[in-house]
């Protein structure tokens, strides 16, 4: 039963953090280069643009969900299963989601990077 709890926590973390990453990435592209914007119009303009962006707010909501799922998961299951499994799977689901929803050019180099990092994270926990 504990195992089922752990894996549902992992599924929740992966789903929520992928959704969050995609929404936040889209929001920040809409906001524009923060460094440039900051120099031109100041920090309040940057923060104002971020906080008025619906994708940003939804992204933060998704990230909060992921964060609390992680806290729940860590208190139930082994940290050595939950942390690497969710981190590793998130690299792969993010590559897929970035290609589908953000239209990023995920070429061989980026697939290799995502898979190598995902594999490496699993091995670190072994």
């Amino acid at each position, binding site marked *: 039963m504990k195992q089922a709890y752990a894996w549902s926590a992992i599924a929740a973390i992966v789903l929520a953090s992928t959704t969050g*990453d995609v929404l936040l990435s889209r929001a920040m592209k809409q906001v524009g280069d923060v460094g440039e914007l900051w120099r031109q119009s100041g920090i309040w303009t940057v923060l104002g643009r971020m906080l008025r962006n619906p994708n940003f707010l939804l992204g933060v909501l998704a990230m909060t969900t992921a964060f609390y799922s992680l806290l729940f998961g860590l208190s139930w299951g082994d*940290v050595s299963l939950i942390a690497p499994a969710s981190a590793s799977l998130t690299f792969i689901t993010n590559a897929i989601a970035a290609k589908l929803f953000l239209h990023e050019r995920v070429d061989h180099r980026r697939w290799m990077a995502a898979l*190598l990092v995902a594999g490496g*994270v699993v091995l*670190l926990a072994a």
Partner: protein
Amino acid sequence: MTFRKYLVLAGVTLCASIGDSLLSRGMKQVGSISLNHFSDLILAVLNPSVALGILLLLGFFASYMIALSWADLTYVLPATSLGYVLLTLIAKFFLHETVTTSRWIGVLLISAGVGFVTQGPALTHNPAKCQEAASEPASARNQP
């Protein structure tokens, strides 16, 4: 990619890895939380390690947002995964933990992944930039 941008990526890496390890330590001190005592989860932030961990994760979030404003998601995520390597090195050289062969292989895989992605372009799709590029003369775009 400028030096400043690499500094932002370093900020993402450092804050995430140190923040996560503090949270992990803090939640172990807090102990198991059951669904029936949901309020325990909110009270967990009173633990110093959890509080400091959350502070660092806020720093992570700020630098992560800055990075995402000029780089692809599939660039930022692998590029900042060096934090895992960093944690292993800290475990080995500062905490004198034994690092097994499979962990060293994991470190190698992650480093290779970071190497792969950082050799490519940081940004491949940006609707705003795409429009700018389309309005530029073709000769300007073809220059390396």
